[in-house]
């Protein structure tokens, strides 16, 4: 039997972080931004069935980049957490902040426990409020930290570049079509600065729309509605929100 090499804790953490970051970078990035009537999730996703965005609870949505089976596991855990909490207390007692905390604790414990491999995921938990000021956006990197974001957030391998692009251009009170187009522009820029075209059928789009009459505010946007929103050139105006529920 040989004696194991000594690895300093700093080195160990740095290695684990690098491992997780590399895993996350293999997938495509995605963005979440606020618009006038809520929060929109936009990402490139060739799959129709394996979603990157989903509903957690009435006003809470979930977005994830990285390894599918790992974030799917966290997503279902979050749905279970939210449903159980809403059942034992009240629906209003389920909040994005609470959920983000639980995710942070979970990711943090996994990241620092020597027996487990770190999760190669980066999450966004978003909650749409009654007004724009009430919206909440939390970014949760692989190591269990929480970042409280405003306006726009990008996660995934290329996130830094995309966020800085968004930070410069995102404005308060954009319409859904404007926010969507900005998101697509941000996602179409490659690391080396060249632009590529992302066709509408490779886009996954969902919104948390505070104007929806139902108590569940999460809604996927696809097909004709997505094409219409993307097609509306600059002039905007008529496609104010997702209110025309055309599938």
């Amino acid at each position: 039997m040989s004696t194991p090499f000594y690895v300093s804790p700093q080195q160990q953490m740095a290695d684990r972080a690098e491992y997780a970051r590399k895993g996350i970078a293999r997938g495509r990035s995605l963005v979440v931004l606020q618009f006038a009537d809520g929060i929109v999730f936009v990402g490139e996703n060739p799959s129709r069935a394996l979603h990157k965005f989903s509903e957690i609870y009435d006003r809470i949505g979930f977005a994830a980049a990285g390894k599918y089976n790992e974030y799917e596991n966290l997503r279902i855990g979050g749905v279970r957490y939210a449903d159980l909490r809403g059942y034992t207390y009240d629906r209003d007692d389920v909040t994005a902040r609470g959920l983000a905390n639980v995710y942070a604790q979970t990711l943090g414990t996994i990241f620092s426990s020597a027996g487990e491999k770190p999760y190669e995921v980066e999450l966004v938990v978003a909650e749409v409020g009654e007004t724009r000021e009430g919206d909440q956006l939390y970014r949760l990197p692989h190591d269990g930290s929480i970042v409280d974001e405003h306006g726009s957030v990008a996660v995934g391998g290329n996130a830094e570049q995309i966020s800085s692009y968004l930070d410069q251009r995102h404005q308060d009170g954009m319409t859904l079509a404007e926010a969507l187009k900005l998101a697509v522009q941000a996602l179409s820029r490659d690391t080396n600065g060249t632009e590529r075209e992302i066709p509408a059928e490779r886009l996954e789009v969902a919104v948390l729309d505070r104007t929806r009459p139902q108590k569940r505010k999460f809604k996927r946007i696809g097909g004709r509605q997505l094409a219409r929103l993307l097609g509306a050139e600059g002039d905007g105006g008529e496609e104010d929100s997702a209110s025309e529920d055309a599938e």
Partner: protein
Amino acid sequence: MEANTRSTGRLPAAFLTPGSSSFMDFLSEHQPEILPGNRQLPPTQGVIEAPHGTTIVAVTFPGGVVLAGDRRATMGNVIAQRDIEKVFPADEYSAVGIAGTAGLAVEMVKLFQLELEHFEKVEGAQLSLEGKANRLSTMIRSNLGMAMQGLAVVPLFAGYDTGRDSGRIFSYDVTGGRSEETNFAATGSGSIFARGAMKKLFRDDLTEEEATTLVVQALYDAADDDSATGGPDVARRIYPIVTVITEDGFRRLTDEESSEIARSILARRLEQPDGPRASLL
């Protein structure tokens, strides 16, 4: 217990274990004590007094189904509540109306709604109408112990079947036995009278408006002969709850709409107390 959601720590292992898409299955593994069916009952003598809900009716029409209920809850011979709600949306395309012990029934509906929503979120698809009806069956069966002590819950489940493009109605007995009803159904103490009314008034080419009027007529007849069923309360502006489920999803009639139906029926009954007559042959 390590297994609670009150702590803000890491999600317990049960939350991250791949498994069933059913919320009830998750609860029964993780926190079985909060499932209504697992409650330990002390031995009791006689029947426990608790508010009871009474009459629920449903009728299909081409393209949908109507589910409606009166507003009265009784405890023995006393009216416990005049404006109770006994008809609830189960999800976008189905609704459930409950007769029996009100407290347990409302809890069952809450869990049933959650069960359907949970499945939908986890799977990314809705359960089939048949699947929903079976799930409700399981829940009633788990209440059998309490039903034996007089705390029975007997729901009526109605929904729009997107596969068949039609409304369907399912009725239940206290043991969870489920049967699909054709055309119309009723449950609760006033149901025999409501069923008689519906039998005479039903046609298979009803419009949505006619179907909503029909159920209010039936509830009126139930209230007429059953003291536990409440009729439209014009003085307090309490009217039956009427819900319609079609291709467009669940819709509950507004108070104005249901009051209009109830008032027009009341006006007719002032002239003809026994209501519309069917022809003899």
